[in-house]
């Protein structure tokens, strides 16, 4: 049965599965900032803009972000940028560039020219990554989150944490889509040298390992293969658990206080994907070393 899927579901639902106890309610605020999502028209990427509108991505995004009780408005705008990204500036808005989604689509076609399912899986996962990453910058700004380390890496780590909070289907789509995309970019782009390294964004290869390391620590049953097969080398693998715990702790301290726990449960109970990557024999996902193999249940 052909399955349909939703693209670009932006999720900033602040799930924290470790804590069974109710999180503290949002700090004493009687009113919260509004979260709005707008689509700009597009001359160059009209089909992408149309797809996002048709799939009601903005409505889903607002539902998804609903638990977040921000003290200021958060505006997310999708538009033509003339570049892959538009750096976030304090006060916003968050800008999602149609250009970056278009690049994801093009790259996914190259990776999977014949396999439509896997191609769409990469598009979905990598697009979610873009939206989570860019929204993370806004969250850091609005909540005045203290950031140690490079901010772009911080946005990646927060995005990776969130990807791991919605169950294994969402994990597979987002992590596989993201890492596959970054690997493809790294393999095809000119090698970095000299002043390339002055870029405040990390090289795609570095981002690949950052996401995979957190995923492997957060859910070894799905992504542990990356550690076992040496996809993540031992000297890094030994630190993945610490990296994951670190971002969990940081999130808990600085962002969780702004989450409405009741709204969070509702978002978590929502089925955001109406398809499962784990059921697709043709996806190639079962052979992806990043996803690893689930341990064989012990025989009783």
């Amino acid at each position, binding site marked *: 049965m052909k399955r349909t899927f939703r693209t670009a579901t932006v999720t900033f639902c602040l799930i924290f599965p470790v804590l069974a106890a109710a999180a503290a309610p949002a700090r004493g605020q009687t009113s919260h900032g509004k979260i709005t999502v707008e689509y700009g028209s597009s001359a160059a990427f009209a089909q992408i803009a149309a797809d996002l509108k048709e799939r009601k991505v903005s409505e889903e995004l607002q539902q998804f972000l609903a638990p977040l009780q921000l003290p200021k408005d958060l505006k997310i705008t999708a538009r033509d940028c003339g570049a892959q990204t538009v750096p976030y500036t304090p006060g916003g808005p968050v800008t999602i560039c149609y250009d970056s989604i278009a690049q994801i689509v093009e790259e996914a076609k190259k990776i999977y020219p014949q396999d439509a399912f896997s191609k769409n899986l990469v598009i979905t996962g990598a697009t979610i990554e873009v939206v989570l990453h860019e929204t993370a910058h806004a969250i850091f700004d609005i909540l005045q989150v203290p950031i140690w380390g490079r901010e772009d890496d911080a946005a990646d*780590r927060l995005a990776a944490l969130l990807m791991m909070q919605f169950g294994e289907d969402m994990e597979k789509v987002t992590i596989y889509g993201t890492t596959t995309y970054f690997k493809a970019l790294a393999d095809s782009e000119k090698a970095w040298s000299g002043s390339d390294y002055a870029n*405040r964004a990390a090289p795609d290869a570095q981002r690949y390992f950052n996401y995979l390391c957190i995923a492997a620590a957060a859910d070894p049953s799905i992504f542990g293969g990356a550690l076992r097969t040496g996809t993540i080398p031992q*000297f890094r693998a030994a630190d993945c658990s610490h990296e994951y715990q670190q971002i969990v*702790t940081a999130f808990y*301290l600085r962002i969780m206080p702004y989450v409405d726990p009741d709204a969070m449960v509702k978002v978590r109970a929502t089925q955001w994907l109406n398809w499962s990557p784990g059921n697709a024999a043709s996806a190639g996902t079962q052979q992806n070393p990043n996803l690893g193999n689930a341990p064989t249940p012990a025989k009783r």
Partner: protein
Amino acid sequence: MKAIVQALMLTIVACWLPGLTAPAAAQVPPEFSNPKIVLFEEQKGDGGYWTTTLPDPQNSDSSRRLAQPISPGRVAVRQAMMQRHVLEEYVEFLSPLRLPRTYRVFASDCSGNAWDSPYYDSANRWMNMCYSFIGDAAAKADYLAENQAKMKLWTPVSKEQLIAGLFAATVLHETGHAIFDLLSVPVFGREEDAADQMAAFIALQFGTETARTIIKGFAYYWGYEAVVDKADPGAVAMSIFSPNAATEDSDTRCLQDAFCAFSDMHGTASQRMYNTLCLAYGGDHAAFQDLIDAHWLPPDRVKNCDNEYRQAYLAFSKTIYPFIDQAQMAKVKAQQWFQPEELKEK
């Protein structure tokens, strides 16, 4: 040759971290003592300057499981560090920090390797300053000082300034790790970058001369690694590895692969250099305008340096500042932590 190296090390270390008239005995003056920051002695009376390696009971090499005597080539380094009261001054420098847990500090021959560098151990909450680092720093300083023109350094540097700055920067980087751990600081970015930021940020709080010494030490070291050791991914030289590492070792193979090398939790050498320079300029335009004029930072990155410094300032203010005793901090800031020749631009 060995005597020359030892003399060099003695001279270099003897010139490092000056200023305070230290008491004859290896003790921290009462006005700078902090009960939560202690010198960790291996033997009673060694003042934290161990005469051995650090035993590693889990090491696959049985010879490393027990402590080994300090390498003869590093005995002089130990003595020089003791004469300069390196550990004591470090403890004094940190005295304003109100820690909830004890932080132990010592120096040793670490794993007995010539390339060991200072590190923080979160399991034991200690900082181990490896004697061999001074030798490594001295060798790089020699090269840079002699090849300044060829390497187009943005500003001249002397061996003394380079070694002093690099050692201070490295210790401050490890101090960053210690602080993140001891104070349970939330770290959203990569911790190694965060520790670099901590080092640069602290350096920028002690005036132009101190800032330039530490920033230059750090930045030039990473520049050396990138250009001379070709440490950036895709251009890896064997010189950065143990000479005994078999090429079959998977971690070694990884670091020689242009893609896998990016798996390191540290930024690349060049990234670390640019990060440090950007933070420095963002923190003090006047003090570091010359690096901009020499085009050591691309314009696109320069645009964001003020923001990067503001971000580090905000992070420090929110997560570290509340733990600092301001009265004690004023005493520390009033001290001169480097000798004049180490602050002097060549």
